[in-house]
């Protein structure tokens, strides 16, 4: 250890802790929610499939977190000439 290191200002550690936590928790919360999204996806698709024909690959379901709330986004592409099914 050089004598100069005694004078060097030590870096503040709390901002590092804060940043690491924010990144980690955003990731962990998202992975917990992905289980829920998978369940919702299957059930929502089953309901739609009862009424109209659509391409399962043209469906986007995602969960976003914004402050205190989560937003569930469902995007289903239904062709204009899709066959309507009897309920």
């Amino acid at each position, binding site marked *: 250890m050089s004598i100069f290191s005694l004078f060097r200002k030590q870096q*503040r*550690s*709390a*901002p590092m*802790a*804060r940043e*690491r*936590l*924010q990144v*980690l*928790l955003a990731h*962990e*919360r998202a992975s*917990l929610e992905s289980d829920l999204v998978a369940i919702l996806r299957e059930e929502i698709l089953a309901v739609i499939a009862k009424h109209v024909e659509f391409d399962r690959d043209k469906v986007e379901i995602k969960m976003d977190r914004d*402050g*205190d709330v989560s937003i569930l986004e469902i995007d289903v592409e239904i062709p204009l000439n899709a066959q309507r099914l009897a309920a």
Partner: protein
Amino acid sequence: MGKVIVVTSGKGGVGKTTSTAALGAALAQRNEKVVVVDFDVGLRNLDLVMGAERRVVYDLVNVIQGDAKLPQALIRDKRLDTLFLLPASQTRDKDNLTAEGVEQVITELKKYFDWIICDSPAGIERGATLAMRHADMAVVVTNPEVSSVRDSDRIIGLLDSKTLKAERGERMEKHLLLTRYDAARAQRGDMLKVDDVLEILSIPLLGIIPESMDVLRASNLGAPVTLADARSAPALAYFDAARRLAGENVPITIPGEKRGLLEKIFARRAA
């Protein structure tokens, strides 16, 4: 009907048992009937912190298994008439804690007490989920330290999904109790600040308990810190937290933050 509170954290050693005892004694000093319930089967410690370790005859598991009636297992505090302890068992297998049994005991306690404070074991296993299951409100005990904050976040997720309230589609009321806080270190940037933790966990603040020798002293003596030295800094912080729990509007102060220049100089020297 009594209010059920769970004191929980995920991480061990952050002050759940200390806080259960201190809040329980603080509420009982307002002449409200309080029972503190130890859910840490196999590793009970609330009896020791309350100074009742030599008075335990029957415990929570005895009551659940029908070996004892609830009033036989309740231990009345020697200092406060309105404070009771329901100890956990020390020797028995934790599988003896059944969901139905816990429900019966809590329902019974709600008839006789204003407050039922459940001291959760650490972790996210059955003991912890059973402790939170019947809660009306949760006190999440957190230290200003990365692993504790992470585990609290996990526990908040469980409170929002695994409790009866959550299953009924109701909102679980959650409150943050920040313990072992050192305002001087936070000001220097060496410890997460109150606002950092609040921003990350985004639940309302119940209180800030300063890091203090008085907490260890109280547990050495076997008394909740709000009884051992009611005028100490942590005791005052716990009294304020208890008043907020009871619905009073008490402004939050950060213990030890507003120091004069002289005090700061002396604090640095001591450190």
